[in-house]
């Protein structure tokens, strides 16, 4: 019975795609800002039928991270039916007006990849925004006081250590749109900044000045890198060309600046600073130099680790009060909202999902995903060691 459907579907899917591809322009409205920051959006109920094993697990995980909840067919707003025998097939039906949103089959890649592709197709058809299920993350893995850089699927699967230095590494950061990471390594006896091409495995030293060379952040166009250097006698914000040449100093204070990130248009570098009295703040400065502008934040204190959302609207950061909390504030400043407990947020390319570090019992740290508008959260299962400092490729 199933195989009969399968062979039927193979022949029909193409036809369906032709016919319905035109009709997928219908999208859900953008969330009201208040709904978004308060996490008041209701998860979209969807039912899954015909899937099993790993494919079912992947679909459920992906859809929950994307703001859906899986329910029985009678409670479902959308019904996804299909199979995962050879290729992964799916037909999405709007259960309210009974229209078919799409019917597609996926071959090639692993079963996980096919399932991720189907989940992305569901997200695109219903929300109008591309899914994130086939994106990558980079993070730091610590074991026995040494650490390495790890690259994995966004759900922690297919994790690969891309360094084997048996030293300390820190703060991996992707070059947008490229398979290149910047990070700090202590491999050569000093905290130095390197770039690392994941395809050629070639590493280049970008900054090895006297003092610490830390927290690199490649610009959106990949042509520049912001970083914190203490070569002049205090930890200050610098920017250089992608290869480290053309170094320019952007701040000069006795206090420590940390964790730069870029606005998506490349006009600003946001960073965490500190007043002489020890009060921490977020600020932004043009990569071409000029005055430092504070980003006003009300309701929370001690901000650090800012990350500007790819749509430009938000700055996510860590607030340290009694514990660590993930917060967001409009990028122009204003009222900050606590989203969840955790630290070091990194936005997904969709500007609604983020990955962050969570401290478990006994202080052991691991990674979690958060869908901001529904506040649905999923832990990333892995057994690599202590995982921190996630960076989402975008």
């Amino acid at each position, binding site marked *: 019975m199933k195989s009969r459907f399968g062979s039927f579907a193979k022949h029909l899917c193409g036809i369906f795609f032709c016919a319905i591809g035109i009709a997928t322009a219908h999208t859900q409205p953008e969330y009201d800002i208040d709904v978004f920051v308060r996490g008041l959006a209701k998860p979209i109920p969807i039912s899954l*039928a015909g899937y099993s094993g790993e494919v079912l697990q992947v679909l459920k995980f992906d859809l929950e991270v994307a703001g859906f909840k899986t329910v029985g067919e009678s409670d479902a707003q959308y019904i996804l039916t299909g199979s995962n025998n050879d290729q992964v097939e799916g037909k999405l039906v709007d259960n309210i007006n009974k229209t078919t949103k799409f019917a597609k*089959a*996926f071959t090639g890649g692993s079963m996980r990849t096919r399932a991720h592709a189907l989940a992305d197709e569901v997200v695109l058809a219903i929300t109008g925004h591309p899914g994130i299920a086939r994106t990558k993350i980079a993070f730091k893995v610590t074991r026995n006081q040494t650490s390495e850089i790890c690259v994995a699927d966004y759900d922690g699967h297919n994790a690969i250590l891309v360094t084997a230095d048996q030293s300390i590494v820190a703060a991996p950061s992707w070059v947008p749109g490229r398979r290149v990471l910047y990070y700090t390594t202590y491999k050569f006896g000093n905290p130095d900044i390197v770039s690392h091409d*994941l395809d050629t495995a070639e590493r*280049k030293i970008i900054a090895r000045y006297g003092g610490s060379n830390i927290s690199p952040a490649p610009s959106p166009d990949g042509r520049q890198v912001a970083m914190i250097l203490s*070569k*002049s006698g205090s930890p200050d914000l610098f920017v250089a060309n992608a290869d480290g040449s053309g170094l320019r100093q952007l*701040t000069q204070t006795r206090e420590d600046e940390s964790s730069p990130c870029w606005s998506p248009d490349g006009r600003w570098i946001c960073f965490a600073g500190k007043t002489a009295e020890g009060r921490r703040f977020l600020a932004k400065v043009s990569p071409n130099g000029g005055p430092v502008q504070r980003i006003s934040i009300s309701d929370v204190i001690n901000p650090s680790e800012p990350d500007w959302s790819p749509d430009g609207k938000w700055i996510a950061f860590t607030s340290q009060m009694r514990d660590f909390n993930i917060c967001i504030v409009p990028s122009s400043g204003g009222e900050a909202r606590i989203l969840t407990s955790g630290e070091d947020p990194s936005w997904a390319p969709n500007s609604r999902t983020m990955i962050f570090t969570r401290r478990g019992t006994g202080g052991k740290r691991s990674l979690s995903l958060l869908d901001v508008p529904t506040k649905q959260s999923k832990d990333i299962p892995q057994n690599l060691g202590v995982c921190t400092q996630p960076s989402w490729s975008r």
Partner: protein
Amino acid sequence: MKRAVFLPFLVVGLALVFTSTGCKNPPKGVTQIPSVTSRPVPGTVDRQGPITTQPTTPTPGTGAQLKPDESTTAVKLPDSASGFAQPSIDELIEGMIPDTNYFKAQTVYFDFDSSLIKASERPKINAVGDELKARPETRLMIDGHCDERGTEEYNRALGERRALAIRETLIKYGISPARMSTRSWGEDRPAVIGHNEEAWSKNRRGEFILLLPKK
């Protein structure tokens, strides 16, 4: 049951077969996922190739071409910033052997979230300064560390500020800035493992590594 679910699908599909002429090729609806050809190389030191250092070592302190930030209230360095510039790391360690134990008793401890040198710690720094004055052939690496309370990159910057505060004290004590460089380890190298104040107070520290010329 399954058949019932798919029935409308088949009906609409068959209707389309008869009305459409442009969709005769069945594989069109099948999305071929590109095979993953470029996976990250499982990193081994051998396969990572040589590390290329920058062709020219920029002169320390020459990065400051822009006007200092004037809108923040942070205190400027007491002297011109270049007076505190760090030496080239490669020149500092070239031909030197590190001794991590020599100044073990002089480890400087800090208060929570602070890089202020406490009066109680000052004699330790002076003792290091006296030793450096007596042995002009030596150099010094100053390592800053933090406890685990604080975000990682914030702690990395705070650890650096601690090491730099010690270095500033030594410069004012009369040691040439060209003989000393700083490193921050953030919270990555705790002296004591533990999640209580007893452990934390021992981890908020600055350590001295004496650099001796090779014989």
